[in-house]
């Protein structure tokens, strides 16, 4: 079995600070592998431990921090890594990102499974996995919280607002993993030191024959959801119905429902 995992260097949103006018201080924010991507790496390593597999990670970008993502994945147990060297990867259009990963899949494959985090810590479009599955014309298991990789296929459960969905597919398949899927292992010092000795393969979008499209980020602002506190009194059981009625009325008048 061979498994490809895509991981993105994204903002550590928990450490994002804002200036006094509400603008996010993006340059000062530390970056790391996204939470869901880390869970995707963990699922790949678990599948390897269960069934035996060669696991491969790919990331896009040119900085030392991008190389660190590959080494962090190695320290978790991934066997091989590709770094697609390109400047300012945050300005790549999503179809470009999908095409790059699709070309890695085609040129370094065959693969039985492709794992991605359901969304990154910063942009979180959740569109990459569906786009990739469509480009590769292989099944998609989206937003998987619980995964079972078997010898002949894969089964995943996704928890949606209206209930749980079970998806089953034969290989090959694309699977997007949520940050609730598992508790990713924390690399040990031995694994960290060993990860340095594993080579990283470097390729460029040109090597992959991908035409690069960029988007221009116009502005990023802090979005604060305005809050209003509405108190409905219900001193005893008989008043609850009346209070619920008032609450619904208030929510309707605010355009919430």
């Amino acid at each position, binding site marked *: 079995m061979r498994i490809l995992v895509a991981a993105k260097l994204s903002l550590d949103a928990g450490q994002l600070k804002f200036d006094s006018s509400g603008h996010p201080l993006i340059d000062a924010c530390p970056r790391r592998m996204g939470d869901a991507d880390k869970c995707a790496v963990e699922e790949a390593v678990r599948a390897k431990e269960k069934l035996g597999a060669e696991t491969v990670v790919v990331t896009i970008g040119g900085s030392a921090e991008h190389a660190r993502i590959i*080494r*962090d994945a190695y320290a978790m147990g991934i066997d091989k890594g590709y770094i697609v060297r390109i400047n300012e990867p945050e300005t790549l259009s999503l179809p470009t990102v999908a095409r790059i990963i699709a070309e890695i899949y085609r040129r370094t494959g065959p693969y039985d499974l492709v794992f991605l985090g359901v969304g990154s810590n910063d942009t979180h479009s959740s569109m990459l996995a569906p786009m990739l599955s469509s480009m590769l014309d292989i099944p998609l298991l989206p937003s998987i919280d619980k995964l079972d990789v078997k010898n002949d296929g894969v089964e995943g459960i996704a928890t949606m607002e209206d209930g749980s969905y079970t998806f089953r597919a034969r290989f090959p398949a694309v699977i997007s993993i949520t940050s609730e899927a598992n508790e990713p292992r924390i690399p040990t*010092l*031995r694994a960290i030191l060993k990860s*340095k000795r594993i080579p990283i393969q470097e390729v460029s979008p040109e090597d992959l024959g991908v035409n690069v499209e960029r988007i221009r980020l116009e502005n990023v602002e802090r979005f604060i959801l305005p809050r209003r506190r509405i108190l409905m009194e219900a001193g005893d059981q008989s008043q609850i119905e009346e209070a619920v009625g008032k609450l619904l009325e208030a929510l309707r008048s605010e355009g919430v429902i």
Partner: protein
Amino acid sequence: MDFQFSEDEIRFRDSVREFAERYIAPRWVEIDEKGKIPLDLIKRMGDQGLFAIPIPEEYGGMGGTMLMAAIAVEEIAYHDPAVATAVYVLLNNGWPFALYLHGSEDAKNEVLPKVASGDAFFGIASTEPQGGSDVAGIRTVARKKGDKWLISGEKSFISGVRELMELPVGGGFFLVAKTEKAEWGHRNITDFVVLPKWNGKLKEGFNPTIYDEIGRHGISTGGFTLEEFEVDDKFRIGEENKGFYYVLEGFNIARTLVAAATIGSARWALDKAVEWLRERRLFQGRPLASFQGISFKFAELYAELEAAKYFVYKAAWMIDKVYIEKDPTYKPKDLNVPVSLAKLKGPETATRIYEEVLKWHGALGYTKECNLYRGWLGTFSYTIGAEGAQNIMRYIIARDVIGSEYVRG
């Protein structure tokens, strides 16, 4: 000169931070309340490779450095500011390393892998009821009988006495004893690996007691008597009658890690202070930070902590130069001043920080609801002693800088 940690050190620090956030921070108050680090946490720390960090992999260690051990201890103390967990970790890095430096191959192969995995404890047993810093004055005696040693005496204020009894394999100490006669002096001291419980079996001749301390409850402090406790000659550490020098080398290592624990705890206290000084408002809504009586004091404490941190990192870096890189430019005695600076400034800075931060919290700071007191009591214990009293640090600095012939008078 480079003030950056290497990428390996940063990645290791991040991994320890993540571990401590996930597994230690949620339990540190419970650890202090119940007076015990849960055995499952000790095992988990072993699985994570937090013990025997600077020891080579061939002895079960992690193949890291003393600077990495200091980084780990600092991060763990940040997440258990009462410092019990950090002290447990530092003991099981510092003293196994001292054994690695001077122990026999048999002793190292027997003990180090089990300490590294977290199944056994390995600390220091030097202090006796009549004193701790006066190592030359110890009275425990080791008498040779064939290829065995019979050790008798009493040790007190020893960390880890209860833990070694509870761990599945057990554990023991780097124990300092007088060879043959208990006469004052440093030329008749020999060190031994003493394992009161090993491979699950408690040996005869070991009689422990546990003390009730005022803080840092998670790790036990106790004492024990040894009555003709039998030790194989393979567990003698280094040459006979040179134990004084080996244990001083061990103290230099452990003092550095003790200082790392205190600065980690103090960093937590100052982070708490930053939150409080921003949020707490009074006198018509002014943040507490707007009062210079407080913010200037904060700045002073911040400066002291930064200084203490660099003392710790430099001491650990020099230990690596001496023992891991084996750089001939540096000798073990060169460690005396840098290590003493770290151990002098770390604990004293930490307790000063706690005293101020606690006062900034007003009456709330004096309640048990506000956990600052746990860090205060925990770090305070290291202004008293542990690997040498603070006045010993002052003495070493004065002796080595002014000159031994002047300081001794």
